[in-house]
């Protein structure tokens, strides 16, 4: 019997994937928890283009005329700001969520290219401290593994208010990843489904945050830059409040930012995209006359040197990557295909970080799986990727006539969609129209 196409009309409200999720929820009785970031189509850096040189702008000669990439983070109050050779940093990802081999790979790669990596929920491991010349130490609501010794041996401190994948939500690490070592670092029983707090235990609101930052500065004798990281939801106000509270650096993480384990409903429905988040954060700094005085790091869906160049042109001082760095280490690589299949997925689609069964040894605590990632090889891959991103950003900057990537500016950008033009605050290509802006 053949199917009559008139009777096989798909429903817009209930397409097969929605039906499948309803039935999964009915079957399992728990929301879907998964890794990585949003999968929905959002206005992004892909919807922006850069304007290369023309008669009125001179390009720089590729490979001959220098285009610098160095950036200094934390120049406001800290005695020892971070001097980076490239404007691409690695975002906070915990040991627990990531394997020790992945953390070591990241540290080694960052040291080789002259940038910083970041700890995560659960504290600092010896491997990552040894491997990382510049290490940012996160102070998170859970305070897992937080101690003054590591605070003092960090190169910068990041007070985490939220992350782009789940602004307003705490961390999550399911029992299969709470290995004896992870449990010990976090002072938790082995094998539990760990729910991190979403609020800091000893402060609420911007006035308290000011005092908290003062305490951290006192403990570290005003040496370390202090970052404040927010998940993008109200970035204009959050950026201004972070500046008011005394931050040296504000990190804004858009909703394309990844996670090791979060409810799918949170990932897909809470927060705003990176593009408008960046523009609002820059607006906030300009409004306070603090742009370039308090540095701005943007993250959430950064993948290429083009994304880097566009983010810097919009006003960021640096970018931060997480998911893309893991992909450089092998995440979703088409190897060990049978192991992806065992998870019910395939290379290119996997978001099963939460299971601890990462086929490529990146997001696992299983000793056998972890062996699939050689830290030396991983470091080489990530180092190559960071170098390629930097070269790409330099290529674009030179084409726009810039001797430093930070000289890229909003005037170098246009948007290909009305939505992106409005969100990024740059003209729709071929027009002088910025939706939402008064043309007078």
């Amino acid at each position, binding site marked *: 019997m053949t199917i009559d196409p008139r009777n096989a009309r798909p429903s817009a409200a209930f397409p097969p994937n929605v039906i499948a999720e309803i039935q999964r929820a009915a079957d399992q*009785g728990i929301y879907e928890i998964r890794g990585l970031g949003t999968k929905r189509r959002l206005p992004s850096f892909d919807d922006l283009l850069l304007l290369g040189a023309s008669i009125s702008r001179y390009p720089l000669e590729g490979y001959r005329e220098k285009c610098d990439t160095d950036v200094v983070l934390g120049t406001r109050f800290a005695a020892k700001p971070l001097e980076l050779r490239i404007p691409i940093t690695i975002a906070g990802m915990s040991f627990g969520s990531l394997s020790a081999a992945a953390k070591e790979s990241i540290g080694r790669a960052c040291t080789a290219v002259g940038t910083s990596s970041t700890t995560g929920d659960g504290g600092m491991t010896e491997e990552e401290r040894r491997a990382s010349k510049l290490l940012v130490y996160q102070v998170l609501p859970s305070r897992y593994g937080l101690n*003054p010794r590591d605070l003092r041996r960090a190169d910068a401190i990041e007070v985490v208010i939220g992350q782009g994948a789940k602004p307003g939500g705490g961390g999550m690490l399911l029992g299969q990843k709470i290995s004896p070592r992870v449990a010990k670092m976090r002072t938790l*029983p082995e094998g539990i*489904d760990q729910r991190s707090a979403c609020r800091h235990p000893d402060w609420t609101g911007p006035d*308290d945050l000011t*005092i908290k930052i003062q*305490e951290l500065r006192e403990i570290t004798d005003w040496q370390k830059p202090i970052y404040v990281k927010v998940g993008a939801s109200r970035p204009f106000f959050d950026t201004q409040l972070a500046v008011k509270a005394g931050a040296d650096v504000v990190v804004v993480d858009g909703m394309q930012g990844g996670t090791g384990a979060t409810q799918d409903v949170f990932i897909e429905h809470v927060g705003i995209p990176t593009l408008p988040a960046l523009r609002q954060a820059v607006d906030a700094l300009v409004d306070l006359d603090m742009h370039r005085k308090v540095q701005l790091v943007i993250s959430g869906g950064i993948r290429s040197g083009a994304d880097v160049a566009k983010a810097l042109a919009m006003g960021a001082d640096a970018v931060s990557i997480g998911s893309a760095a893991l992909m450089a280490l092998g995440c979703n690589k088409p190897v060990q295909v049978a192991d992806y299949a065992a998870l019910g997925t395939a290379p290119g689609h996997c978001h099963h970080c939460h299971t601890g069964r990462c086929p490529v040894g990146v997001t696992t605590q299983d000793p056998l799986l972890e062996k699939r990632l050689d830290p030396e090889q991983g470091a080489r891959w990530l180092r190559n990727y960071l170098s390629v991103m930097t070269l790409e950003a330099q290529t674009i900057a030179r084409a726009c006539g810039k001797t430093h990537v930070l000289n890229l500016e909003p005037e170098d950008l246009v948007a290909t969609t009305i939505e992106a033009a409005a969100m990024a605050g740059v003209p729709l290509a071929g027009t002088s129209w910025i939706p939402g802006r008064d043309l007078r």
Partner: protein
Amino acid sequence: MQTVDLAAEDVRALNGRLHALPADTNQRAWRVINPRGAHAVAVGLTQELEVVVDGHVGYYCAGMNEAAHVEIRGHCGWGVGENMMSGMVRVAGNASQSAGASGHGGMLVIEGDAGHRCGISMKGIDIVVGGSIGAFSAFMAQAGNLVVCGDAGENLGDSLYEADIYVRGAVASLGADCVEKEMTAADREKVAALLARAGIAADAAAFRRYGSARTLYNFHVDHADSY
């Protein structure tokens, strides 16, 4: 005895002097006068020092303390002894919210009352309170002991992990997954030792014990009303 007058020097100078002491220093006794509610007094200490703060302090006094003995002869703002690792912090008066938050070790003694969220997220610290504690105390507490000679506010021990709570007075209500447990001879011995270390006179036999029911350790749909 070294005396630092916070009416003449600022907190940054005080902490800087305390941090700069060499390991073999003989300047181990310090007195801080005129704190006048200053924040972050005597934070991040790493040595066996005796620091007496004569007066009231603001937030985070003795935060992240290691090894030092800090005595506050007054009341405290939020987060006294937050994230402390070792040593002893003693408050002669009352402490505001989040006393001993996320403390990993050492002992915090509050001779008066403590506000809400006392011992929140504690990770191994021992806290002894001579008076009563506010709501949501020991929220998500992971390890250590909270001994309360007075009463406890609402939602005591909400979402508790493996910390032990002992209360002599009334408990307004227990939080999610917190239950009363049997007070064994070993518990009485432990409480008596904690009270003795804290220098607070109370009969260990009069305390009741509360801990985690461990029903929320793993996600399950039947616990949805507790999440």
